């Protein structure tokens, strides 16, 4: 993270280029002097070089990694003709993303619609899990009795593979759509419950002592101490949960069908369009990364360490 920040700073320094403008506005004598010194030896020139060097230094390892990955992919594609190589996949992706929102009926919709539908399901299931899981976590953390009561249930249910809940969902809810939302709900609730509870239990005794000495009301204790102290833990739980939810939606949609990125993968498998499957893998990965980064950004805002 810090390396990336450093390069953006140096980049903005380069882009602002105040010194360059100043240099050109100077008197003719100074300008001629500047002309005599080679450009790269002036102050601003040196800074441009330094910034560029930093940028390359920071970007080199990740770029090398990606290059290595693509090369490996090309190699595999070369030896196994059924797998499309990077160039072929890129071509297919350009075609696919040039019209992401076409709609030829429920079985043939653009990639954009599929992504949005998956995000919608994740949003519903995950949102419901947050609404129930976070308060539940608070209560479990605050009341030892409830903690002991819920502990065996959570311990048993948490390791269950999310898809094992799908038949129950289909049975009770009778429809594929709510069943896949239910799977998202049940799989993303645990990280939020557990992290929130851990956060409540780990509130420094000092803060609670402050509350006791001040005789704060329960409302003030919650708003001024409990909630802000636990918020970073809650956000960690939310971040883990959204990761799980996005992981699970692909699998759930493969089983339930409908419009969504998971079903799309399955559909393209049936069409034997492997390039699209590879594109879907990248799309799922990138969307997951974006979701996580978004929540990291929010979490950073509420971190006081």
């Amino acid at each position, binding site marked *: 993270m810090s390396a990336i920040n450093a390069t953006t700073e140096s980049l903005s320094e380069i882009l602002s280029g105040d010194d360059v403008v100043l240099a050109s506005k100077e008197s003719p004598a100074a300008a001629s002097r500047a002309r005599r010194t080679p450009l790269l030896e002036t102050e601003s020139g040196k800074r441009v070089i330094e910034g560029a060097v930093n940028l390359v230094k920071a970007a080199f390892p990740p770029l090398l990694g990606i290059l290595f990955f693509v090369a490996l992919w090309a190699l595999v594609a070369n030896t196994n003709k059924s797998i499309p190589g990077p160039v072929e996949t890129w071509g297919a992706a350009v075609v696919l993303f040039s019209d992401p929102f076409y709609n030829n009926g429920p079985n043939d919709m653009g990639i954009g619609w599929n992504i949005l539908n998956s995000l919608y399901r994740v949003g519903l299931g995950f949102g419901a899990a947050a609404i129930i899981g976070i308060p539940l976590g608070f209560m479990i953390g605050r009341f030892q009795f409830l903690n002991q009561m819920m502990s065996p249930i959570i311990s048993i249910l948490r390791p269950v593979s999310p898809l094992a809940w799908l038949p129950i969902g289909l049975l009770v809810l009778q429809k594929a759509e709510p069943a896949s939302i239910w799977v998202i709900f049940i799989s993303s609730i645990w990280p939020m419950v557990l992290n929130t509870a851990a956060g409540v239990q780990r509130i420094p005794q*000092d*803060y609670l002592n*402050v509350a*006791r000495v*001040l005789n*704060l009301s329960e409302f003030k204790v919650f708003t001024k*101490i409990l909630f*802000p102290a636990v918020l970073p833990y809650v956000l960690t739980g939310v971040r883990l949960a959204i990761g799980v939810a996005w992981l699970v939606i692909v699998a759930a949609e493969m089983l339930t069908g409908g419009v969504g990125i998971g079903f799309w993968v399955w559909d393209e498998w049936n069409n034997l369009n492997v390039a699209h499957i590879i594109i879907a893998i990248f799309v799922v990965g990138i969307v997951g990364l974006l979701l996580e980064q978004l929540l990291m950004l929010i979490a950073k805002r509420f971190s006081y360490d």
Partner: protein
Amino acid sequence: MQSYVQIENASMVFSTKKGKFTALTDINLNVDQGEFIALIGHSGCGKSTLLNLVAGLLDATDGVLLLANKEIKGPGPERSVVFQNHSLLPWLTAFENVYLAVEKVFGDKETKAQLKARTHAALELVGLTHASAKLPGEISGGMKQRVGIARALAMEPKVLLMDEPFGALDALTRAHLQDELMKIVAATKSTVIMVTHDVDEAVLLSDRIVMMTNGPAATIGEILSVDLPRPRERLALAHDPQYHELRSQVLEFLYSRQMRPKEAA
């Protein structure tokens, strides 16, 4: 005349996994209004436990604690505490940290403007007006501790309790804050009970030094009156024979009669 803070036969027994642990026994102490008391002793002697009893954060197993003839039951803002590690809420600014306390104590009787004025006054008292909008993470350790003192003082407590308030600070900052505390206490005429493990701090600041024996079952070993005239000057005291005499009496108690538990064993 009755003493302001009265501790009679107080004892504290903790129930631990290994059975009962007697931390304090037979504590008898009277503190007058406006007096500055230092509690000193080796680590583990229960001096913080005694402070917590007065604060009401712990309930004495036995005995009675009174403040202005009223029994101490549970913590309350009339016995405000300056904690060792400042205990500021990191999501509130210096101003908001103090305001939270002020609002709680005076919120029923005073307008918002009055509450804000009180908060500003408290921060001004500790010389932090310029940092009032800063979060605790943005200011130095010494400044945080000053906000903690401002918060405690702003509540206009009957007794100010301080638990090694300067223990985590470097020597220079500590000396500076000790000088400021002396001025503030002189100006506000506060009654103070302060836990410390610093002999110089105890002699410099207090009217009486309560020296505790080693735990378990610690009690008050000796009480030393510090008759040095006020206001006290750190530099002048460095050459004062009476200061050195008092200092060596405390050291004598701590290192000759109350060996460190480890060394004694």
